[in-house]
């Protein structure tokens, strides 16, 4: 059938929109992304870094103060033995989920749009896991004994309790971090080689060359690279599910009302992806605006991420409803009391903030207009970021503050040390991200080029045909 006889079908145009807009050539991708690293450090970067790094230092000071003085500088006290520390741990580890989801699961499901956002998300994952890792270490009180968490042979023959989900957490998080670093680094190799080849100073050439591992872009190297990438994606996929499932076991294996419920593992995983995507957008939207990357991180990408936020937010809403329904249906008086207490007790403000931010605010993404308005998207993402912190606080603190024994009930309030430690982790997270933006390509150039229309040998850019006729 000749092209002339094909008529477009009636109805709206449902052709797929290209993942790279404005017919940007492959060289444009290289120049624009490499330029972020190669150009002089912009003024705004110094301003941002001079704001985030002191905050990080305040956080580090608080950690030092707490370690040297004791856990008493925090507001935690029996029965609330876990509060901001574990809330922050779960909050950060959750944020660390989107990166590997985007790089592994979306890779395995052949979601080509992931290429524009995977590198920054993976970096974000690593920095979030670093922030998360701080809290379990310092909350044990005697920080110098934290090595007891690892099953290291010792002269006393003391081993960690292998039946404890807290130990599983140590394994799960450290495995996740290790594999995420490997995955991130493997993806970086071809781009590091690009930066090496473009380097104008010997220092840059040396360091990028060192980490590019002698990449030349040969056929054989690409074959090995793609096999390694696929295997790492396959290995990372169960880790995305397992890490937050194990975190949920920390609570769900107990018999504490509000903690012990069977839906916790998938509910936590959905919540982690939800919070993680919100944080990806929180970081990428300003970066896109500053570096004018609208042709690479297109409205289509934002739209898809908003849909994932809507989906996972609704799954989280489903889980909240199931918990509430079964607390009533199960007929367990303690369970029922725990949930009523969450909604109408001393922490009701936290609870309703959680519901509004996590369940209600993403519902606005049912409307295309809202998914395409960056201000609305940004606002919802900030709500989700806050909501997911509140969720962990509600789960952890409300269940502990009012447990089985009313005489032990205690309303928990954080101290300035806890607050500033948490704020400090934002400083650490953002400072690390700013450093990452300066020294490494924040968008996977080689992968973006693969999904560009120009990677297709049959692609005819507008005007190309006329040129060949002449």
């Amino acid at each position, binding site marked *: 059938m000749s092209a002339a006889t094909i008529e477009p*079908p*009636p*109805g*709206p*145009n*449902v*052709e797929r929109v290209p993942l790279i807009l404005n017919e940007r050539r492959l060289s444009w991708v290289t120049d624009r992304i490499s330029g972020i690293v190669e150009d002089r450090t912009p003024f705004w970067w110094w301003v941002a870094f001079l704001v985030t790094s002191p905050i990080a230092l305040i956080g580090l000071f608080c950690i030092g103060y707490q370690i040297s003085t004791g856990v008493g500088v925090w507001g935690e006290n029996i029965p609330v033995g876990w509060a901001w520390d574990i809330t922050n741990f779960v909050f950060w580890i959750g944020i660390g989920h989107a990166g590997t989801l985007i790089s592994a699961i979306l890779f*395995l499901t*052949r979601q080509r749009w992931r290429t524009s956002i995977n590198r920054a998300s993976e970096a974000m994952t690593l920095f979030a896991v670093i922030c998360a890792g701080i809290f379990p270490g310092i909350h044990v009180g005697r920080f110098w004994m934290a090595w007891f968490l690892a099953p290291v042979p010792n002269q006393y023959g003391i081993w960690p309790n292998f039946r404890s989900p807290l130990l599983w957490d140590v394994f799960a998080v450290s495995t996740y971090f290790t594999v995420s670093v490997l995955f991130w680094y493997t993806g970086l190799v071809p781009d590091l080689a690009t930066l090496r080849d473009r380097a104008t100073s010997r220092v840059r050439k040396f360091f990028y060359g060192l980490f590019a591992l002698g990449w030349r872009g040969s056929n054989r190297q690409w074959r090995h690279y793609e096999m390694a990438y696929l295997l790492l994606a396959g290995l990372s996929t*169960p880790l995305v*599910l397992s890490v937050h*499932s194990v975190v949920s*076991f920390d609570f*769900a*294996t*107990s*018999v504490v009302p509000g903690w*012990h*419920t*069977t*839906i*916790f*593992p*998938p509910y936590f995983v959905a919540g982690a992806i939800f919070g993680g995507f919100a944080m990806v957008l929180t970081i990428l939207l300003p970066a896109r605006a500053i570096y004018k990357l609208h042709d690479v991180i297109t409205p289509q990408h934002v739209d898809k991420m908003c849909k994932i936020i809507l989906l996972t937010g*609704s799954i989280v809403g*489903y*889980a909240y409803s*199931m*918990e509430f329904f*079964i607390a*009533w*249906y*199960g*007929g*367990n008086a303690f369970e029922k009391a725990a949930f009523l207490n969450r909604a109408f007790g001393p922490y009701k403000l936290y609870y309703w903030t959680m519901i509004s931010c996590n369940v209600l605010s993403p519902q606005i993404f*049912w409307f295309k207009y809202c998914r395409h308005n960056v201000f609305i998207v940004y606002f919802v993402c900030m709500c989700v970021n806050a909501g997911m912190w509140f969720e962990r606080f509600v789960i952890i603190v409300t269940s502990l503050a009012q447990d089985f024994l009313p005489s032990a009930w205690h309303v928990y309030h954080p101290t300035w040390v806890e607050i500033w430690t948490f704020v400090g982790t934002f400083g650490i997270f953002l400072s690390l991200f700013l450093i990452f933006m300066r020294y490494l390509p924040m968008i996977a150039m080689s992968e973006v080029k693969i999904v560009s229309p120009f990677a297709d040998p049959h692609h005819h850019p507008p005007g190309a045909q006329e040129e060949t006729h002449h």
Partner: protein
Amino acid sequence: MQPEVFDSKHAGIPYLILAATGVAGIVGCVIGAMMDGRQLAFSWLFAFIYFFTLCAGCLFWILVHHATDAAWSVLVRRVLENVASLIPVCFLGIIPVLIYAPFLFHWWNLAPGEDPLLDAKRGYLNHTFFIVRTLLYFFILSGVALVLKRLSTRQDGDGNTWNSVYMRKIAVAGIPLFALSLTFGAFDWLMGLDYHWFSTMWGVYIFAGAAGSSMSLLVLLVTGLRRKGYLSCVTMEHYHIMGKLMLAFCVFWAYIGFSQYMLIWYADMPEETSYFLRRNVASWNALSIFLVCGRFFIPFPLLLLQGLKKNPKHLCMVAGWIVFMQAVDMYIIVMPMLHQRGFRPHILDLCTLAAIGSVLGLLFLKGLGKYNLIPLRDPRLKESLELTN
């Protein structure tokens, strides 16, 4: 592409086999009703829930297809639509469940005041609301399935892309409705068998089994049609994707099943452990272990192999096994409530399976012949034809 319509008038032997087993099954059920109503009630519920989960799972895949604007599944979508459109007929199977509800659901017979635990949840577990909910699930799931099939077949005629847009919108709105219907259906018909027991994971568990087994059913149906000379455009690439989804949901089922079991085992609270204690006694324990091995440990390593996923014959063997294991799963959920001392197979288990399965099978074959086997004018058809993994 040429239109392909299944020649249902000359389906011959499959028709005869289905008709024969259907008649035998129905006669068996009628005799069973006179001899042992209680056994029939449980066997019927088992067969009903088995076929319901398969049909509902197919609806889930259609919803996902439209909501994600997927292309690969265009070629096999009509088969899914034909299975999902059996949901209204499948729901007729709930009528005997309602008739035999006093046998099935202990709470059905209890008067107020007899059990304080039941009194606490009377607002949910009462006769009227139970029937109203069942009707709601019927209207929601049937409505979504039929409307999506109607739009899809209408597109075969007019080729209008508005149909695709409408289908996408309906599918997106259908996902939460589907999730709630399946969850509360699972609560009512299965969790309600022991009204003391509860698990927030229950809806997700039933969904995990339904989604994985219906993808396996799709593989079987597509291969059957290919053997008869239809759907030759379905390539190894499509099989590869279907196999990958089977693998994903094989793992997902195990993940959900393990999480539910492990958390209940670990906390060891009597109100929760009752479910597994009932299924971990005598020969039920052997069947439970068989379920774990057969539903996960056997198909999982096989489905990891790329060569197997691209070989229709081998993939069909695994798919057939998973569809069988879904029946075992539903059996272990329903039957221990009747035979508490151990696994006791009964001829009525087969009769009910034959009765419901044959009627659905006959209607499926008849439905296949009404429309093209491929949504010929779907805007993503070309992408599906050119699929590479």
